[in-house]
């Protein structure tokens, strides 16, 4: 599984949605499953799946799937 697939899996597991619904354009609060509460769950999954520690600014900035990839790249995860 490459890191892109891994990221999509993190989103699917954390938000409890079908993987087919996940694409780069998926944005925070654009679907009911990605609200401020499930966002906490998402951060937990991404941190553990990728072995990174995200600071509060990262957590707030993670407003889309594309943005999540950008933030992880900053933490030396390559896509």
């Amino acid at each position: 599984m490459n890191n892109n697939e891994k990221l999509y899996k993190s989103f699917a597991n954390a938000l409890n949605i079908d993987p087919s619904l996940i694409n780069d354009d998926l944005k925070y609060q654009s679907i009911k499953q990605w609200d401020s509460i499930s966002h906490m769950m998402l951060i937990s999954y991404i941190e553990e799946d990728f072995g990174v520690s995200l600071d509060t600014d990262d957590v707030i900035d993670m407003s889309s799937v594309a943005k999540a990839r950008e933030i992880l790249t900053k933490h030396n995860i390559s896509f």
Partner: protein
Amino acid sequence: MGLLTGSTALITGASKGIGKAISELFAKEGADIIMVSRNISALNAFSDTIASDFGVKVYSYEGDVRNHESIGYIFKDLSEKGIFIDILVNNAGIMIDATLQMIKDDVIHDLFETNVYGTIFCSQLAIKPFLRRRKGSIINLSSIVGTNGNLGQSIYSASKAAVIGFTKSLSKELAPFNIRVNAVAPGFIDTDMTKDMSASLVEKNIGSIGMKRIGKPKDVARVALFLASDLSEYVTGQVIGVDGGMII
């Protein structure tokens, strides 16, 4: 088998008083213990004893809850070692008494940074592993002064009341994930915080306690144990007084 067998608990302010009593009781009940204190040598003085007496793993970390970086390092190190906590006890706290006109800015900051920001920082970091496992218990140390107020303790009282507001709101955020957040509000407890009081003040305080005795750290530890264990699996957002019927 103890009430906490198979669990891992992180306790801040663990080097003495209530934090030490909680660490010892949790270990006795089978939990692996992560003790955090600004005074690492004080932790090292008894950590091996706890480990050998109760057959649990004990980790000691030097850390200052006022410093997000310092606490962040501890959680990162634990994560890298594959250690995930189930229980967080936000015990680290300070008490400084002064009437409002006599209290300096730096003291106000110190009280809030330790008692409130420290509790928030540690909780922010702890809930990440809790969320993934959909299980966890946070126990915050408030005070009877936070629930009732007290003369000469307006800022300390405000900081401990903030802990209660934080506890109640966070419990609502995290209840859907089976993560419980509760607070303990000790009354007059025999710790370093109270040892410097004059004999007359001690006598006066004991006079206001229905049970007519000062509380012991283990009295608080036992309630923390209840909140940490599955005995309280349907309890969240509560503040439990441990004060022997004190009236202030």
